[in-house]
């Protein structure tokens, strides 16, 4: 009888204990899931902020020294990665979430996903993977959120020495008092472990968990920041030869493996017929001007443009490398009216202008003058703003000039010496492709061009300068089914971009397979593009399959794209041609 009673008591206690473990684990799982959702949303919101130079980055953990201080719950500005610490609940906006042991949650963040110091930026795009080693699998996760559980005494395990955990009320924290085994050593991490010396409960945050939100935020920023800038790279206001009716768009680079592409725009893509067969679409040409732009031919000598005074003699030469053209000589005043200004000009044509995103750097033309008697030192002279003309072969003709010092005013008798110096670097990179640019640098520094497809209407490229500007029959088309047949809406796109997003087939990236980047009609090389609702299909089928393309409309004819509703859901919204268009992904 006594034995029976004893056995009953023992088994009932065991049952109760295991029941409580299950209840505890469920309750912890709820807290961990809540923390994960808040983290993912926080990352997206942070990435979407204009001025955030590292979109997609995660907050650092709370520093150990913040424990039990007024700064508790606040993330460190930067941290040595992988970083382990308490979840920065206040930064995320959460309550101080605790596990069933009453312990605040812990948090591990992967190398490459948070700021390691105040100067090193992150590089995060759709192809980025977490670099945490979890349960022996390398590059498994971006972050780990851990419920540390009750304190315990552990034997040596997973590289950690035996340890009797204590939970002191004063900081700084010691990770060994909260996490066990591998997690306490902080090199590789585990979510479960056999044996009695481990009671951490963890949830992974993988790149695939974060990427849909990050891509949504980045697509929004490309729409707000990159697209408007693309509209102003080549316009009538800075390049004559481009009609005032619309901007000119650079030639796309042929699509090839984005990891090895030169990102050099190709005029052949926008010929009729195009070569290769996909017309005027591919990668955004974010190459550097220094690698592509050259003098098309030897620039002519300097000339006087105002008709007052003249050049007596000059010699033009190349300086060191052929990148700088120098003309030196003697100029003479206008004898009849010596007060008249004398303007000297140089003209040069540069190749491959429209094959990239370029700008003019007027400081790369310098002018000097001095008296022609003796050899006094050269005096620098202010130069006039350069003017440029876009040519149909994609080259640009640049005219630079300087108003020379008045001979009389300088008391130089009747003539002086001039020296004009024109550098190839007058064709420079547009801020859009400068990774150091404070406004746009985030885009190329994080290599978002690797997952961005770009298309321009052939009629809006340099190839068509003689009959410029697309119309209702030859613009790009977008979501045509929404009214293109009956009117001009959405048949009027001059340029657009498609953020391809992460691989839906988990293929190894980067690769040269366009269908691994784009979906549906976006990948067929036509001039019709479509936006469908984001979906990852698991057990249902859809004629278009899973979808994570995000179309970014850059420019269109007319003054506005109207709000159109399909089944009462707005599809495209724009107020005026100057404000960004945003596309919505609704059923």
């Amino acid at each position, binding site marked *: 009888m006594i034995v029976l009673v004893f056995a009953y008591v023992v088994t009932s206690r065991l049952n109760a204990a295991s029941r409580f473990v299950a209840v505890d684990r469920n309750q912890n799982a709820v807290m961990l899931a809540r923390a994960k959702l808040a983290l993912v*949303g926080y990352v997206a919101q942070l990435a979407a902020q204009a001025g955030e130079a590292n979109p997609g980055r995660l907050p650092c953990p709370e520093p150990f020294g913040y424990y039990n201080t007024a700064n508790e719950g606040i993330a460190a500005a930067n941290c040595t990665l992988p970083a382990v610490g308490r979840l920065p609940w206040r930064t*995320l906006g959460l309550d101080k979430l605790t596990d069933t042991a009453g312990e605040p949650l812990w948090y591990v963040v992967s190398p490459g996903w948070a700021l390691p110091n105040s100067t090193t930026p992150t590089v995060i795009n759709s192809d980025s993977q977490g670099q945490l080693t979890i349960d022996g699998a390398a590059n498994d996760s971006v972050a780990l959120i851990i419920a540390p559980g009750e304190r315990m005494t552990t034997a040596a395990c997973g590289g950690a020495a035996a340890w009797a955990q204590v939970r002191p009320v004063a900081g700084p924290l010691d990770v060994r008092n909260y996490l066990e085994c591998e997690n306490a050593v902080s090199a590789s991490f585990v979510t479960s472990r056999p044996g009695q010396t481990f009671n951490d409960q963890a949830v992974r945050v993988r790149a695939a968990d974060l990427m849909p939100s990050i891509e949504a935020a980045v697509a929004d920023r490309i729409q707000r920041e990159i697209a408007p800038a693309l509209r102003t790279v080549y316009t009538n206001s800075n390049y004559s030869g481009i009609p005032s009716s619309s901007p000119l768009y650079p030639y796309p680079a042929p699509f090839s493996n984005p990891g090895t592409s030169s990102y050099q725009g190709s005029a052949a893509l926008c010929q009729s017929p195009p070569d290769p067969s996909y017309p005027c679409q591919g990668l955004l040409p974010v190459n550097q001007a220094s690698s592509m732009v050259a003098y098309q031919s030897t620039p002519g000598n300097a000339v006087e443009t105002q008709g007052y005074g003249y050049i007596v003699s000059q010699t033009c030469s190349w300086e060191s490398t052929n990148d700088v053209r120098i003309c030196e000589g003697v100029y003479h005043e206008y004898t009849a009216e010596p007060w008249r200004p004398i303007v000297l000009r140089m003209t040069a044509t540069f190749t491959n202008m429209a094959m990239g995103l370029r700008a003019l750097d007027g400081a790369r033309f310098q002018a000097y003058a001095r008296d022609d008697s003796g050899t006094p030192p050269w005096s620098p002279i202010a130069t006039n703003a350069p003017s440029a003309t876009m040519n149909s072969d994609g080259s640009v003709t640049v005219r630079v000039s300087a108003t020379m010092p008045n001979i009389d005013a300088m008391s130089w008798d009747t003539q002086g010496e001039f020296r004009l110096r024109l550098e190839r670097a007058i064709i420079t990179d547009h801020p859009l492709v400068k990774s150091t640019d404070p406004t746009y640098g985030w885009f190329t520094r994080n290599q978002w061009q690797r997952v961005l497809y770009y298309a321009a209407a052939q009629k809006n490229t340099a190839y068509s300068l003689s009959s410029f500007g697309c119309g209702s029959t030859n613009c790009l088309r977008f979501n045509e089914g929404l009214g293109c047949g009956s009117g001009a809406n959405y048949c009027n796109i001059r340029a657009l971009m498609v953020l391809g997003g992460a691989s839906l087939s988990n293929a190894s990236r980067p690769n040269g397979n366009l269908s691994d980047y784009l979906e549906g009609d976006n990948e067929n090389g036509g001039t019709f593009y479509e936006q469908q609702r984001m979906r990852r299909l698991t057990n249902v089928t859809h004629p278009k399959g899973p979808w994570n393309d995000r179309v970014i409309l850059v420019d269109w004819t007319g003054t506005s794209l109207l709000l159109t509703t399909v089944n009462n859901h707005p599809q495209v919204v724009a107020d005026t041609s100057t404000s960004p268009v945003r596309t919505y992904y609704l059923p």
Partner: protein
Amino acid sequence: MHMRDQRHERGFTLTELAVVFAIVSLLLAAGLYTLSAQTDQRNFEETRQRIEAARSLLLAFAVANGRLPCPATSTSAGDEAPAGGGTCTGAYPSGTGGFLPARAIGFQITDAGGYAVDAWGNRIRYAVSAGALTGCAGTSSLPHFTSATNLRLNGLTCQPNDLVVCRTATGITSTTCGASPPQPPLTNQTTVVAVIFATGKTGNQGTGGADEAANLNGDGVFVWHTPNPAGPTNGEFDHQMTWITAGELYGRLVAAGLLP
């Protein structure tokens, strides 16, 4: 006839009875006290579960409607006011408004008036961010969080700037936890889009201290800490609170394809 022994037939003396009653009442009191404490504990847990359920339902409402609901008022029969969202009649809890809109979100446990209640039968409160936004990259039309159209047009860069949860009412203003609060705020100023709380066992009876009063004074500054009996600074406090962060809301809306 044999006389019965009077001594053996005597009953309990008064003293004995008094002792017995004293012991019984002591035992009873102890039992009842434990019972009442257990009931309180159970109600506390139950209320915690209800406000967490309300939290989930609010996020589900946001995914279905592209916005958060407005709070109910004392005359809206448990529905959001105005119906259909937009500029809320009363965004922050006060004597007449700021109730959880049980009908709008499908909260099941309600009183006769249709309002969601906690385990003590007191109406659950709800506040939603309605004030000026911060951080907006584009437009910032108000209301943001309770208008599906504005939420989409303004986008996910807009952060709430009016709701904040403090640890104490000491030093708070109508918009912040104060310039130098005695304890750091529980939330940063730009993180909270909605607050849900139950007024606890004592309910909305005006018996609470300054900390409780701060939650019902019609502004966006709230106080939450572990329960206090009457006595410590700012008096009795038994509100139970949870909140929704901008990250949680935007994360859900982005995942649902509603943003950006």
